[in-house]
């Protein structure tokens, strides 16, 4: 993990860059991205006709490219982009490009410390994964559903293992897809493979698979469970004991099973995006207890609170005592924590963020085109032209607000560190 403790947590408001001034420098400026520590703001810009680059804190990278896209900051605050020069694609990190070039590259991922940068790549119509500028030895005819291990050191991806021409429907049904982990393919093929999960130690991979057109199950390291279901959703490894659980559809309803055996003793009209608390003691999932109503269930027990439109972006607090999610009802969004909704409703809400001590929960929200941060249901009085997800200090007493203000000089990007109590009272 990155060390947020080394960041500047001194209270105060600091101008990082006046992005408005960038308009005098470039005729093309795309939407900005901000580093996790709040110290950098960057956009794709055009320096000259057909020459694109990145402007960070008011200074453009020296190098220019035919195309630049998919800006992402690593957790350790390095800026990455996918860039094309003379038709060859590669990854640029803080202005330096990888040695390897590709015909196309996409889907950048990082580990929690940001050290490894992983992408899906294609060269000469062969597909593979490249990790920190080292392409896999093995190539495939196509791939999808890239995942990386929790430490960021391993990658797995769904690959096609048997050549298939369009129209070969019976060959398809014999199984032409599998999983490649660090380039090495599982021995068994499946009709389909979809979402996957790495075990917490990075040694195992579980995947949603279909063994016939009608039999869905979970395969762990290439071995399918004995049981099959009419459908399944993404499996998850338990951080506690390494078991694998997944939502499965039985008799038209959904329940949670573990290692192919019943786990929750009840079913729901829908059940997906289950998650473990960090200690693995609790399991929560987004569920539909009845048609058109959505909520969270913890260990099989659903909240009384339900939403009509959707529930999404659920997250456990670090100590596992709290569960927060986004709920939407009649087009209005809010945050709910342990079954209780915030009073205020918004035009959009982002995934809640817990403080490291689990006491507080904050979220970025938007109302009538203005953005702000809300902590425990109480909004910061100030609103902004743009804001990024809040970041709590390691002790949970302060919060970092990364925002573009537009009151005095439109486009000034500030990094604010304020005591949490300034918002919560």
């Amino acid at each position, binding site marked *: 993990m990155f060390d947020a403790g080394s960041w500047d947590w001194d209270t105060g408001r600091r101008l990082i860059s006046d992005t408005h001034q960038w308009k005098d420098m470039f005729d093309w400026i795309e939407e900005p991205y901000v580093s996790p520590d709040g110290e950098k703001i960057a956009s794709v810009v055009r320096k000259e006709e057909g020459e694109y680059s990145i402007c960070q804190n008011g200074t453009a990278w020296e190098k220019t490219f035919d195309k630049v896209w998919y800006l992402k900051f690593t957790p350790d605050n390095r800026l990455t982009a996918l860039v094309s020069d003379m038709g060859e694609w590669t990854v640029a990190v803080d202005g330096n490009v990888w040695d390897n070039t590709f015909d196309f590259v996409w889907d950048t991922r990082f580990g929690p410390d940001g050290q490894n940068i992983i992408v899906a790549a294609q060269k000469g119509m062969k597909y593979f994964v490249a990790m920190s500028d080292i392409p896999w030895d093995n190539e495939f005819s196509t791939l999808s559903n890239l995942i990386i291990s929790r430490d960021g050191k391993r990658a797995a991806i769904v690959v096609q293992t048997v050549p298939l021409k369009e*129209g070969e429907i019976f060959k398809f049904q014999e199984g032409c897809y599998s999983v490649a982990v660090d380039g090495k393919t599982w021995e068994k093929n499946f009709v389909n493979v979809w979402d996957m999960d790495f075990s917490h130690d990075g040694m195992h991979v579980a995947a949603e698979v279909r063994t016939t057109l009608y039999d869905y199950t979970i395969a762990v390291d290439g071995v399918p469970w004995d049981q099959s279901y009419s459908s399944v959703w993404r499996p998850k490894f338990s951080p506690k004991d390494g078991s694998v659980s997944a939502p499965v559809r039985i008799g038209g309803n959904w329940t949670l099973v573990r290692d192919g055996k019943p786990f929750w003793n009840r079913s729901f009209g829908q059940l997906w995006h289950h998650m473990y608390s960090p200690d693995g003691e609790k399991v929560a999932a987004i569920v539909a207890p009845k048609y058109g109503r959505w909520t969270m269930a913890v260990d099989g027990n659903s909240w009384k609170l339900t939403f009509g439109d959707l529930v999404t972006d659920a997250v456990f607090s670090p100590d596992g005592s709290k569960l927060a999610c986004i709920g939407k009802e009649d087009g209005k969004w809010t945050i709910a924590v342990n079954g209780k909704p915030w009073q205020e409703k918004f035009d959009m809400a982002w995934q809640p963020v817990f403080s490291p001590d689990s006491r507080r929960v904050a979220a970025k929200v938007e109302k009538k085109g203005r953005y702000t941060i809300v902590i425990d249901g109480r909004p910061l009085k100030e609103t902004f032209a743009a804001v990024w997800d809040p970041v709590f200090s390691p002790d949970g007493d302060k919060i970092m607000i990364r925002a573009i203000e537009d009151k005095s000089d439109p486009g000034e990007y500030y990094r604010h560190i304020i005591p949490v109590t300034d918002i919560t009272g």
Partner: protein
Amino acid sequence: MAQAASKIIKTEIYDEGIEKGIERLTQQRIDQVINHVLKNEVGARLKTYVDTCVHCGLCSEACHFYLSYDNDPAFSPAGKVKQTIWEILKRKGNVDAEFIKRARLIASTECNLCRRCAMYCPFGIDVAYLMSIVRRICHLLGVTPKYQQDTVHSHAATLNQMWVKEDEYIDSLMWQEEEAQDEIPNLRIPLEKEGAEIFYSVIAPEPKFRAQLIYQTAVLMNVAGVDWTMPATPGWDNSDMCMFSGDIEMMGRLKKAHFETAMRLKVKRIVMGECGHAFRSVYDVGNRWLLWKWPPIPVTHAVEFYYELFNEGKVSVAQKYDKTVTFQDPCNISRGRGLHEMGRYLARTLCTEFIEMHPNREHNLCCCAGGGVINCGPPFKMKRILGNRAKAEQLFAVKARGAETIIAPCHNCHGGLDDIVHHYGLGMEIKFLGDIIYDCIEKPV
């Protein structure tokens, strides 16, 4: 034309997916699947329809197959039900492989699930629903037309209907952006722009071989100053042949990916291109199978979106399209959503002369391509074309009154009408609204 129709009815059409499917069937499997579907997947709705129908036959003349095949009762909606699900119920599921073959042919190549007949039934019986049950049974039995099954496999493997690989899709968007920048230098197709107002979603044929539609949309979005984005991940395709083959589990997987892409991008709504069947899937069928009563992120069809842009003055007409146009009402957005008046507003706004074909609006005849029928592929092409002689007659009539161009805001309608126009020698042009909008709107110089 009638002779040709008779000939095609009597000609055995070979389809590898269906023939090999029935070769593998056992009586036990047929019994098991039918009993499963009747016991676990259908209920009061089927029983109500079966108990309510008085076999009056008023639905017959609603069906373009019936009209086109010389009022052959076998092609009437009630006739199709009688030959399939009624017979299954009557025989308590005890039907053989040949019956299943015939049932699949009827449900998937002789019915477009267009729901016109439901409007003519005194009780509103939805024959499309009944045909969908037959399709579901056939899917579970592994008896599906080859080309449609291949499309379903594409959906399963790539989450799009045309085997478009992840990089190919992104590359197509970048290519279209580059092309359009020759016309509007600062034009952008914003990829993965979190928090944009609109996620613009398309069906896979657009990046695959109708990329000019993406170009045209990009021009429109840029001219109108719309805050929009397109994803760079699977989930971008809103189409759904699984809904039509009977593979409803895959249908659910597709719609989940689509809506979760919208949620991930934090958009306010999804605006989708000119496609009818995809609208049915995201607005009605797919979302509801997943238990979302309404789309969790609102969905706006292109016709409604264009209407908004013109009505709110965000785009204006520089010069009108100067050929006389008529308007093909796609079943899924007209009968299914009531967008026909908005379509006419646009036709009149954009074109110098608009005339109606008859019947029209929610009473319009289907193009005979929708409902997955065109996706059954070349073996069934002539059956489909001859099965819509009624549409050709409808178009000849409107052509006689001066119509030169058919506006069809639906991909399936385009495919179906294109075949009809060529086969029957209509000599009419077919356009998307987007084609005409692109040609006619005020653009920056």
